[in-house]
């Protein structure tokens, strides 16, 4: 049993390794030049050379992404809370938010640079805005989708609004919010990187642009590797939380 599960865990890695091998051997045979598609070995070498640059870029991008994400989490849940408890706001807030969400936020990114400058603020705000909507929508569902019987039962047992909120609504919303985080995390990252593309002089987005200007394709790829590792770790953390803390969910049950 242990052997097969180990194999199951290694299978994606083995697949990736064989893909990289085919790339390393196949690209020269097909005559693809290195400035178009650098070899994995060249990317790895460039990655090692620029390790401190990568780390600094990752720190800047990771920071703006995570701050934006945390802000989106706080405001998304608060906004959902207000809409759940003040139903009249639902008819006001929902159409406005839907309209706002239909604006491609990347198209208004230059505006944020004008308003908030070239520093981290514009990146954080972009990350925040991209992550906000999925978190709000899922929180709204999680806080609101409670059987009427549960609310009646809680009320008859003496439950105040606050106790019902913390012990019923919020607990019910946790899996909806973790699901939303898995979508919102990469979106926040898009916000940060687009912000770095438009202005500023730090972060992975800046590193990618720098690589492009200098036709340094291996550097562009190395930066992409950094960002992929970061996203995978972030989503992995959310999944780990789900597996350990949300064992009661149908999808996490082990019988």
């Amino acid at each position, binding site marked *: 049993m242990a052997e097969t599960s180990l194999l199951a865990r290694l299978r994606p890695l083995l697949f990736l390794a064989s893909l990289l091998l085919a790339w390393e051997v196949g690209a020269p045979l097909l005559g693809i030049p290195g400035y178009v598609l650098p070899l994995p070995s060249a990317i790895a070498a460039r990655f090692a050379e620029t390790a401190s640059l990568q780390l600094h870029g990752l720190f800047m991008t990771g920071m703006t992404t995570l701050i934006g994400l945390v802000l989106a989490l706080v405001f998304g849940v608060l906004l959902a809370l207000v809409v759940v408890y003040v139903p009249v706001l639902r008819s006001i807030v929902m159409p406005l938010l839907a309209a706002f969400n239909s604006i491609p936020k990347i198209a208004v990114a230059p505006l944020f640079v004008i308003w908030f400058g070239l520093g981290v603020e514009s990146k954080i705000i972009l990350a925040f805005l991209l992550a906000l909507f999925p978190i709000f929508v899922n929180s709204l569902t999680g806080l609101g989708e409670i*059987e009427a*019987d*549960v609310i*009646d*039962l*809680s*009320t*008859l*047992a*003496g*439950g*105040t609004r606050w*106790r*019902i909120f913390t*012990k*019923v609504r919020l*607990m*019910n919303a*946790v899996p909806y919010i973790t699901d939303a985080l898995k979508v919102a995390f990469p979106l926040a990252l898009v916000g940060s990187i687009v912000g770095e593309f438009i202005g500023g002089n730090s972060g992975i987005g800046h590193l990618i642009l720098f690589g492009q200007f200098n036709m340094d394709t291996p550097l562009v790829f190395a930066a992409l590797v950094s960002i992929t590792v970061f996203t995978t770790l972030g989503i992995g953390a959310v999944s780990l939380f789900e597996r350990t803390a*949300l*064992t*009661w*969910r*149908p999808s996490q*049950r082990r019988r």
Partner: protein
Amino acid sequence: MSTSLVVDNLSKTFGSTLAIDQASFSVPENSFVSIVGPSGCGKSTLLRIAAGLVRASSGRIELRGQEVTGPIRDVGMVFQSPVLLPWRTTLGNILFVAEMGGLRAADYEGRARELMALAGLSGFEDSRPFELSGGMQQRAAICRAMLLKPSLILMDEPFGALDVITRERMGFALQTLWEESRNTVLFVTHSITEAVLLSDIVVVMSPRPGRIHDIVEIDLPRSRTTAALRDPRFVAFAARVREGIEAGETEY
């Protein structure tokens, strides 16, 4: 015996439909009262009005001498579905009502475990609801309703979703739990046998509009066993309840 709940000349209309027509009955303290009747006779609505969850159109309800005008704050409720929170353990679900009441859950853990033992749930304290059978989930819901010894326990067809064999066992399990606590219970069912087996008083209702047709005092000795089901007096009580229901149906 003092009176716990008084339902006095209560009517309820939904739009132009008369759901309950001038219902009057009372529930003595520490007694088990059933409302029995076919679907659509307004018995569940009556229960929700008694809890203060729904307003009556006219008439009044009093609990321990106080008029009920909004949700009562110490009522135990059992629904047709168990309504257990999936993220809590069985013990955690039973203690949930203590937390809702602003009490320290730890103070009630002993009583929760005693109730669980009586309900045959020992060993499942840390199980999640999805690991329990339907009957076990409903027994946990009954333990939860009894935990705080509320002034009134309302049960809305609690065994309605269970199979017949489980249902009969649940009736006896409920009797065991009730004899331990002697809480005042108002129990809604459409099973005549269940009503007669469990109750001190059976209120018989008929539908469209919901009216009370008969109030039957069941003075059979407790604890009632499966043998009691064959007792001629039990059979006579069941027949009288059935007559009440049938009379109500042919009248209109």
